[in-house]
């Protein structure tokens, strides 16, 4: 990072929910990659006149599958998606891919829409070296990765014994070894059951081969994460994803979090990711409906947060550690299917799909995502597409605009021909909620920063990282009717500043930079207490314990976040 550059952003309309700033004309000063006081800034190397523009913190993507073995397997399986050229080579790299993208394309597209941080939310710890190699090939953004815990034999063992102390040691060991950021859980127990050709269908069902249930897995992991004081608590893809009736499982999962309670610093103990995919009522596809209204109420009153996982009409590639779900999807769409069972720790699958506006099921999914975006408290909900499962992250501006403008929603329902079944099965057509720009900034900046515990992100306060987006409109003067202005401006930031450097100007990349990779070193637990457990399970690995994991020296720019719960 080149140092000491001073940028003075003047006359911009600042929106910074973390400081309660709701559209005030203010100047912002940047030095050495941080936001500073005017008095500390010194002479500006660059003055940006942001008159008539809106200045906000850089966007944070809390959940996007952007790196790792499954993303690359998806790319390799879908040359028909990769053949789309976004950019030719030149001063920058060539950038390929329509929905799935190459690493350079991912970095450039984030920067163009003013996003500066992205979290890869699922890697088998066994494959962490690979995932970090890809993260290190993504320019422009800061990043982190969540290793998968929900189907690890050791997780089941400690959950069965309700042994929070050993679970803490295990989490600390695994996230250090994978240079990970927190605890990801996907369909707890279900992926192990899939290795026997089955799935688990409720939180209280016994996991094959173990005396533990998904509820015990989640509860023990939540307690351990809280006691370790991890910046980001348990990040869960619930059981029974993607089927009618899933709303009930989600509600039960939320109740588990309520029982565990808040974390020490008063934050939530559970993040339910892509909740849209887990929020259907009914017993069959024929009578499926939206459980979003009920679940939104429950989320608002419980110690949980969510991201929406909005589907975007068009083709995409689903990819998840939820192996049994992908098998079901493969049978449903009769398409190509990748499966991967990973040692005794996890698994995964990949299936291409298309979301069709005219399909009643897909229309309901689309409406459910928006219902969550409209009905959950903006301090508890983050915009996502569960990239690439719901669609490309480059459509975040589209989702933001849909949430801000009822007129735009009505136009989309009309012009895309969204199946009228949504009138019967969801509340979306009757919702007149319009999110304010302030709330949208929360849902893409301050809320994800708070949920992730990234204290230097998501705000323009003094001392914060100088990750800044300047949108080419004055948010005070754009009405929801002018949705085209919003959509265009949100897609193409006037400026993106990353670590104090201008990297985008008028929606064009002007500089390629390399962000940091955050990883958590959880101290305050004696890791030795699981030595025997580790030595025992490594007898069933095909790599030796000495070769398991990632050294920080192998990463381009690793940044340790040490937490000590003692």
């Amino acid at each position: 990072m080149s140092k000491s550059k001073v940028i003075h952003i003047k006359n911009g309309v600042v929106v910074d929910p973390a400081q309660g700033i709701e559209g005030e004309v203010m100047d912002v000063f940047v030095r050495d990659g941080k936001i500073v006081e005017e008095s500390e800034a010194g002479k500006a190397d660059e003055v940006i006149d942001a008159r008539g523009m809106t200045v906000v913190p850089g966007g944070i993507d809390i959940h996007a599958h952007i790196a790792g073995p499954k993303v690359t397997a998806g790319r390799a399986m879908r040359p028909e998606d990769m053949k789309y050229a976004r950019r030719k080579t030149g001063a920058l790299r060539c950038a390929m891919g329509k929905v799935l993208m190459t690493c350079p394309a991912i970095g450039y597209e984030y920067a163009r829409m003013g996003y500066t941080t992205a979290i890869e939310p699922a890697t088998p710890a066994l494959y962490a070296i690979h995932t970090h190699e890809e993260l290190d090939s993504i320019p422009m953004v800061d990043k982190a990765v969540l290793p998968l815990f929900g189907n690890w034999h050791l997780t089941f063992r400690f959950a069965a014994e309700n042994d929070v102390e050993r679970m803490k040691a295990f989490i600390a060991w695994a996230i250090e070894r994978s240079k990970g950021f927190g605890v990801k859980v996907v369909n707890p127990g279900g992926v192990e059951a899939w290795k026997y050709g089955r799935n688990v269908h409720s939180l209280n069902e016994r996991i094959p081969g173990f005396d533990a249930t998904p509820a015990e897995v989640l509860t023990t992991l939540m307690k351990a994460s809280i006691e370790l004081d991890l910046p980001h608590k348990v990040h869960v893809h619930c059981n029974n994803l993607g089927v009618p009736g899933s709303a009930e499982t989600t509600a039960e999962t939320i109740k588990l979090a309520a029982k565990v309670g808040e974390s020490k610093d008063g934050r939530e103990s559970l993040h339910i990711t892509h909740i849209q995919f887990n929020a259907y009522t009914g017993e069959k596809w024929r009578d499926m409906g939206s459980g979003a209204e009920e679940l939104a109420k429950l989320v608002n009153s419980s110690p949980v947060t969510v991201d929406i996982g909005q589907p975007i009409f068009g083709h995409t590639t689903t990819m998840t550690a939820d192996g049994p779900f992908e098998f079901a999807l493969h049978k449903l769409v009769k398409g190509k299917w990748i499966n991967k069972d990973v040692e005794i720790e996890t698994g995964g699958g990949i299936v291409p799909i298309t979301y069709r506006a005219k399909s009643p099921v897909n229309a309901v999914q689309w409406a459910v995502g928006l219902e969550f975006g409209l009905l959950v408290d903006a301090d508890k909900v983050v915009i996502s597409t569960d990239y690439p499962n719901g669609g490309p992250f480059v459509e975040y501006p589209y989702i933001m605009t849909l949430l801000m403008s009822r007129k735009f929603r009505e136009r989309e329902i009309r012009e895309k021909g969204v199946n009228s079944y949504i009138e019967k099965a969801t509340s979306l057509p009757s919702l007149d909620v319009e999110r304010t720009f302030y709330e949208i900034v929360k849902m893409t900046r301050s809320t994800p920063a708070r949920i992730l515990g990234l204290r230097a992100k998501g705000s323009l306060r003094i001392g914060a990282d100088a990750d800044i987006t300047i949108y080419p409109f004055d948010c005070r003067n754009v009405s929801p009717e002018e949705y085209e202005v919003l959509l265009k401006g949100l897609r193409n930031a006037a400026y993106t500043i990353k670590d104090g450097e201008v990297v985008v100007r008028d929606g064009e990349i002007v500089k390629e930079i390399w962000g940091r990779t955050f990883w958590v070193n959880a101290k305050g637990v004696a890791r030795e207490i699981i030595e025997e457990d580790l030595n025992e399970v490594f007898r069933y690995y095909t790599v030796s314990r000495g070769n398991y994991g990632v050294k920080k020296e192998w990463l381009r720019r690793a940044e340790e976040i040490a937490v000590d719960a003692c």
Partner: protein
Amino acid sequence: MIRDVVCTFCGNACDDIEFEGEYGRNLCPVGEAKFAKKERLKAPMIDGREVSYEEAIERAAEILREAKRPLLFGWSSTVNEAIRLGVILAEKVGGIYDQCSSVCHAPTTLAMIEEGIVGGTLGQAKNRADVVVFWGCNPVEAHPRHPTRYSVMARGFLTRSRADRRVVVVDVRKTPTAYLATDFYMVEPGSDFMIFTALRSIVNGHEEAVPEKVGGLTREELKGLAEILMSAKYGLIFFGLGVTHSRGSERNVEAVIKLVQDLNRKTRFILQPMRGHFNVVGSGEVAAWEAGFEYAIDFSRGYARFSPGEFTAVEALIRGDCDAALIVASDPAAHFPRKAVERLKEIPVIQIDPHPNLTTKVANVVIPTAIVGVEAEGTIYRMDGVPLRVKKIRESEYPSDVEIIGKILEKVV
């Protein structure tokens, strides 16, 4: 003693080698040969004349800059860090990136594009698979420690010993691997597609559609084989070049993928190609995340295009499309068809390799490098994609592939 050394020869990438000086414990004969002292390229050369590294790198960069469409080939026996720079180099010089798969498991990639693949890590063989099939592959000779470490005798979580596994070998001759088998099926060469299709018919309940004899097996034998497959709690088919390189090629692989898809409607089953070189998987995956495709990538228009049969090395050379070549950690002169090698003789060729080989004889610029996994470290992907960090266990005067390719890249951008 240096523990947990990763062997950098075959796709097994055994990571339990222990080095005490020159002696490596746990190595198989093939691995021993890899770590044994061998003839080295002594110094950089231009047209047979010894030069400095700077001169050789300068000349290599000049050749690549001046070429209209250079071929950058090899990669499966070096580390991901070098491969990544190689893909970027191909992009920047508007060349073709291709790797050893294009003459090996490329049919598997093509079939995967059609059907996906139902797979798992080698841990599934060790811990879970009670039916293990070797189809058109011969690990006893090609991946010597595969049976003991992973698939036949390994002590696993559910499968504790050889007795817990039913081992099936299907091949056109009685290979050494066949002697490990519970059941051996000798089939007629080139009949894999028909046999897979017949098995699918039986698995899907249409045995009446199967003729009396298919590919040298009677209907009863086929029914017996299908029974074995369906009786598995968790089955696993390993397949090799006997499937990809016999009549039908990628269609054979598609058929076996579909068979495994069908079997997953009855029980659990996975499939694993027996990949050859220790990092042939990396040479595809790195290219996929950097450029979108695994092999046969052309950058002559400034962006990546994928076209097997057009941008694969052999075909591009035979057609005379490439006017220069960079060969990294590979020996196409020994393995490519004669017409492709003749083209290599006509154009300027740069070789980056630790050892002399036949390609050295057609190379204009030769740049010796450190041996990956012995004198240079980095990341590689085992046949099932599991990433491993290979170690530097001996000091060497030679620069690494990463250093050399990095310097060439600096000179062309």
